[in-house]
């Protein structure tokens, strides 16, 4: 759906750049990218530099950048375009789905989205540029970006170290650094989901989506929280901040 939107707006001087945040790199992202057949730049971010550079803390999110390279909207939730009659059908889960996936999907369905507001604003900006009221002035862009203090910066350093250790094959050594990143940057869902997704439960395409203790060996789970427990605790409606013009 993003691809169709990009193709529609591309003649107006618009480009979409997608970035897959995944320490597993091509191994994690390739199937999704090849299925989408993107005509726009589609990049791989194994260390989540989008978190360092732009303050991305969850997915899906977006940053808007104008023709001069100025950010006009900092990282914010980016809901998929509203569905139209011609949209392809949504992804359907295969039969016999474990209860945990049904629970995760029912929580995910509660994540607050304002697709209509966001996409009306996007079209307004593409049409009117700096004159659009949704293109924020530089002070507001900085002010609306995520807070960052020394703990956050330290947490990002631990996360970078963890991702490189994972890539180098030192999975066990990576875990304490992922844990430190989670403790120091508790608002980042991507730091947590990345680490959880590396603890595969079972095999097959859903192993990375389990993101919680293996029912056969729950004591081996190395993290304080997990996807289902954390989203229930914080409330799925708080996963993203509400969109504001």
């Amino acid at each position, binding site marked *: 759906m993003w691809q169709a939107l990009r193709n529609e707006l591309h003649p107006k001087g618009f*480009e979409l750049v997608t970035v897959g945040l995944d320490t597993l790199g091509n191994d994690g992202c390739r199937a999704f990218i090849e299925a989408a057949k993107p005509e726009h730049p589609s990049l791989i971010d194994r260390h989540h530099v989008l978190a360092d550079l732009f303050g991305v803390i969850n*997915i*899906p999110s977006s940053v808007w*950048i104008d023709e001069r390279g100025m950010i006009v909207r900092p990282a914010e939730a980016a809901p998929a375009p509203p569905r139209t009659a011609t949209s392809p059908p949504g992804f359907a889960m295969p039969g016999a789905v474990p209860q945990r996936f049904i629970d995760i999907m029912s929580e995910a369905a509660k994540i607050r989205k304002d697709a209509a507001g966001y996409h009306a604003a996007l079209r307004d900006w593409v049409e009117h540029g700096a004159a659009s009221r949704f293109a924020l002035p530089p002070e507001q862009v900085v002010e609306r970006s*995520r*807070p960052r203090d020394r703990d956050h*910066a330290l947490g990002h350093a631990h996360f970078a170290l963890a991702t*490189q250790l994972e890539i180098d094959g030192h999975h066990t050594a990576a875990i304490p650094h992922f844990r430190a990143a989670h403790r120091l940057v508790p608002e980042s869902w*991507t730091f947590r989901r990345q680490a959880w*997704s590396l603890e595969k439960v079972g095999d097959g395409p859903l192993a990375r989506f389990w993101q919680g203790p293996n029912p056969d060996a729950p004591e081996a789970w190395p993290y304080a929280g997990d996807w289902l427990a954390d989203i229930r605790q914080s409330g799925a409606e708080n996963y993203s901040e509400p969109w504001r013009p």
Partner: protein
Amino acid sequence: MLLRTLHLPKSEFEAGTGWTLKPEGACQGDVCVPLSQDAGESIDVESVAREIGLPLVAAPEHGLWALGPAWIGSRALTSAQAPDLRLPDLDGREFQLASLRGKKVLLFAWAPY
């Protein structure tokens, strides 16, 4: 920034951290932090990081270190100027965000998990 050594050529330190080392100190945009001595051409990462306030974490048994991002100004962005983002595509070709100057860009973060 990930490091395999704590001594780096100045150009690598600057490219990796976004800080420029000048005679008056380490600078990022309009902000300069004075350094107690000229950092020289070969950077002692521990000492410069300490003076600038960049957190440094280590996995010495694996010969690996990581420097955290700057946290001047208490926000993730210190300026609305888009940072220099360079990332590879599936074929390993590096793409520079700055190559899209002249277009409106929506940078979209997703994950396959």
